[in-house]
C-alpha cells in the first residue's frame, strides 16, 4: 500500500474544500431563488402547443424577475424565479417521470405542465404523492379534477363548459329569433374524456332549458379516423338543423373535408374548441367560413391586459399570439407567483393553501378574474368565435366581449 505524502494529503484536502465550497454556493444560490419546474412537450406531436405554453410561462417569469422577483415574507426579501424546464416529448410516461423528478430531485416548490389531457392525467398523480402544487395549463378534462387531488390545479376552464357555452350561444340565437326553437342537433364527438365532457356540458344545458334542442344523433368516433362516410351518412339521414362535433385538429380537417364533399349543410356548425386554426383554413379555404368554436382565449378579447399580453408576447417571442395556448400558461405562472407571495414562504403546503384562495384580478382570460374552484380547476367563461370570410375571425359571444355579429343561420353556398 502506498503511503500518502503530505503533498497528497494537502491535495485531497484542497479538493474536498473546493467541492464543499461549490456545494455551499449552490445551496446559497438555491435559497436565493424560487425553483419552478416546467414539464411540457416541445418535441413530438404536441410540440407546437407545448412550445406556445412554454413561451407564455417564460414571458410571465421574465416579467416577474424584471420586477425584482416575488416577495417572500419568511425570507424578508424578493426572490427571483428559477425555471427548470423538461421536454416530455409528448410521451405520457416520460411526462410523469419528469414531473416526479422536478418535484423530488429538483425540489421545485411547484410544477407547471401537462399539455394535453393525456399528459396532464399522467402528471397529475405526482402532485399529491410529493405534496407539491402542480398547475396544468393545458388539460381541462374532469378525469383529472374529479379525483379529489389536493395539490392539483388547472388554469383551463372545464371542457364541459365548451358544450355548455355552445348550447348557451345557440339558445341566445333562438331567443333573438335567428334560429327556431326545437333545433334538431347531430352530435359527433371524439371517443375521449374531452368528447364525453363536451356532450355532458351541452346536454346539461339542454335538459335545464327544455324545448330548445332535441338530440337527433349522438355518436362517437375514434381519434385519427380516416373515413367518416358512414357517420356522416347517419348525420345526413337525421335531417338535423345543427351539426356539432368535438375533435382534435387533424380529425376536424378530415371530417369537415368529407362533410363538404358530401354536400352537407346545416344552419350552424361547430367542432368544439376547433375552428379558427390557420392549418384548417389553409386546408379547406372558404369551406371553414362560419364555423363557430368555444375557445379558452382569443387575441380579439377587448381587455387592455389581454392586448398588452399580446404585445408583450410578440416582443418576447418574435411572433404573434395566434392561438389560445399561451394565455392560460401565462396566467398559470402569474397566479402561482401571487400564491407564493400570499403564502409568504416557500413551504409547499402553504403555497397549496394560498392557491386555493388567491384570485388573479387582472387575468387576460375571459371574465378577467382567474381563481380555482374547490376541485382545483379554474372556471371562467368561454368565448365563442365564428370564422368569417377572408380568414377573419370574430368573437360573437358573450355580447360584452363580442367583436362582430354572429351569422345565424349560415348561408348555403
Amino acid at each position, binding site marked *: 500500500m502506498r503511503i500518502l505524502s503530505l503533498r497528497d494529503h494537502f491535495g485531497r484536502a484542497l479538493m474536498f474544500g473546493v467541492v464543499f465550497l461549490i456545494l455551499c454556493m449552490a445551496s446559497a444560490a438555491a435559497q436565493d431563488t424560487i425553483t419552478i419546474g416546467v414539464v411540457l412537450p416541445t*418535441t*413530438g*406531436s*404536441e*410540440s*407546437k402547443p407545448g412550445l406556445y405554453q412554454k413561451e407564455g410561462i417564460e414571458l410571465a417569469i421574465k416579467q416577474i424577475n424584471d420586477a425584482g422577483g416575488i416577495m417572500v415574507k419568511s425570507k424578508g426579501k424578493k426572490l427571483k424565479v428559477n425555471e427548470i424546464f423538461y421536454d416530455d416529448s409528448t410521451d405520457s410516461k416520460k411526462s410523469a417521470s419528469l414531473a416526479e423528478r422536478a418535484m423530488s430531485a429538483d425540489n421545485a416548490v411547484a410544477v407547471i405542465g401537462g399539455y394535453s389531457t393525456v399528459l396532464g392525467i399522467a402528471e397529475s398523480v405526482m402532485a399529491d404523492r410529493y405534496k407539491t402544487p402542480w398547475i396544468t395549463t393545458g388539460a381541462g378534462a374532469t378525469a383529472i379534477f374529479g379525483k379529489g387531488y389536493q395539490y392539483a390545479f388547472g388554469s383551463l376552464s372545464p371542457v364541459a363548459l365548451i358544450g355548455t357555452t355552445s348550447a348557451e350561444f345557440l339558445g341566445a340565437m333562438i331567443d333573438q329569433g335567428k334560429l327556431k326553437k326545437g333545433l334538431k342537433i347531430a352530435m*359527433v364527438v371524439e*371517443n375521449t374524456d374531452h368528447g364525453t365532457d363536451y356532450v355532458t356540458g351541452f346536454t346539461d344545458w339542454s335538459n335545464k332549458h327544455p324545448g330548445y334542442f332535441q338530440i337527433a344523433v349522438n*355518436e*362517437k*368516433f*375514434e381519434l*385519427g*379516423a*380516416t*373515413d367518416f*362516410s*358512414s*357517420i356522416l*351518412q*347517419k348525420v345526413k*339521414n337525421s335531417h338535423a338543423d345543427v351539426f356539432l362535433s368535438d375533435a382534435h*385538429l*387533424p380529425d376536424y*380537417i*378530415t371530417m369537415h*373535408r*368529407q362533410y*363538404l*364533399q*358530401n*354536400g352537407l349543410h346545416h344552419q350552424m356548425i361547430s367542432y368544439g374548441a376547433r375552428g379558427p386554426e390557420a*392549418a384548417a383554413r*389553409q*386546408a*379547406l*379555404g372558404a*369551406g371553414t367560413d362560419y364555423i363557430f368554436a368555444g375557445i379558452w382565449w382569443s387575441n380579439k378579447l377587448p381587455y387592455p391586459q389581454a392586448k398588452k399580453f399580446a404585445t408583450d408576447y410578440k416582443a418576447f417571442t418574435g411572433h404573434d399570439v395566434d392561438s389560445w395556448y399561451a394565455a392560460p400558461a401565462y396566467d398559470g405562472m402569474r397566479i402561482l407567483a401571487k400564491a407564493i407571495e400570499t403564502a409568504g414562504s416557500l413551504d409547499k403546503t402553504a403555497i397549496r393553501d394560498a392557491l386555493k384562495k388567491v384570485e388573479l384580478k387582472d387575468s387576460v382570460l375571459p371574465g378577467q378574474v382567474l381563481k380555482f374552484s374547490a376541485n382545483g380547476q379554474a372556471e371562467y367563461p368561454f368565448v365563442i368565435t365564428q370564422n368569417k370570410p377572408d380568414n377573419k375571425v370574430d368573437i360573437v359571444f358573450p355580447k360584452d366581449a363580442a367583436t362582430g355579429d354572429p351569422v345565424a343561420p349560415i348561408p348555403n353556398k
Partner: protein
Amino acid sequence: MTAIEYLDLLLKALLLAGVYAAMAVGMTVVYGVMKIVNLAHAGFLMLGAYFALEMFQRFHLDPIWGAILAIPAFFLFGMIVHWTLVRWLPKSDTPTLASLLLMFGFWLVLQNMGYLFWGNEDQSILTPLTLSAVHIGESISIPKVNLVVFAAAAVCMVVLQVIFNKTWFGRSMRAEIQNPYAAKIVGVDDERTSRLTFGLGTAFAGFAGALLGMLYSFSPDFGRPFLLRSFVIIVLGGLESVSGVALGAIVLAVLETFSTTIPFPWYHHGWNYYYLPPSYQPVIPFALLVVVLLLLPKGLASLFSRRWKVA
C-alpha cells in the same frame, strides 16, 4: 337507410379500397421478395406527402404530378436506403428481429427529420378538386379527388402487374418469392433483385403518400394509422400476392364502411337490431387480422385458384 344510400356508401368504400391498396402494395413486394416487414413504410408515406406538398408550394405543381414525380425520386431513395442499410441485414426465409428493429429505427429517424424540417404543424394540399364532388341525384356524391386518387392507384396496380408478368425483373421477383435458392441456381442475381425491389416498394410508398396527402392533413407522424391497415391488408391478401392486396383492401374498406350502418339482429324479448358504434370501427382491422391469421394463414387469395397469384 335506402338502397341508394347503401350504393353511395359502397362507392365510397371502393374508392377507399383504392387508396388502401396503393399504400399496402409497396410493403407487400418488399415482404414477398426480401421477407422484411418494412416498418419504415409509414415514414416513406409521410415523406411522399411532404414531397407532393413541396412540389405544390415551390413549383405550383399539381399533387398528381407530384405523386408521379415521387415514383422515380423515391425509387432512387429506396435504392440508396437499401445500399446503405438494408443489404447488411442477414439473409433469411422469415422476418428477423434485426430487420424489424432496423426498419423501426429508420422510421423514427425519418419521423424526427420530418419534425426538424417541417415542424409538427398539420399541413394540407388544397386544390380546386379538394372540395368538389360529382353528385348523382340527391343521395350519391363522389368526391372528385377520391376518384382521381382511385384512378391513379388502379393504374399503378396494373403497371405493377405488367412488371411482374412481362419483364425480366418481374420474373426475378417472382422467382425470389417462390424459392430464393432455386432462383439463385437458375441465375437470378438476388442482391440486384433485392435492391430494385426495395426501390420499387419505396417508390410505391412515396406515390401512395403523395396521393394520401391529397385526401388528409398530415404531419411527420402521418402514416401510423395506415401502417396498421397495410399490415391487415397484406395478411388478408396473403403476404406475397399483389392481386390479394387489392382483394384485401376491398374487404377491409367495405367492412369498415358498412360495419356501423348494417343492423345486427339480436333476440332479447323479441327481435332487436343493434348497430356497431362508430367508435368501435378500429376494432374491425384487428379482428380481421386475428380471424385471418387463425383461419386463413395464407390469406384470402388462397381461397381462389393459383392463377390469382401473380407472385
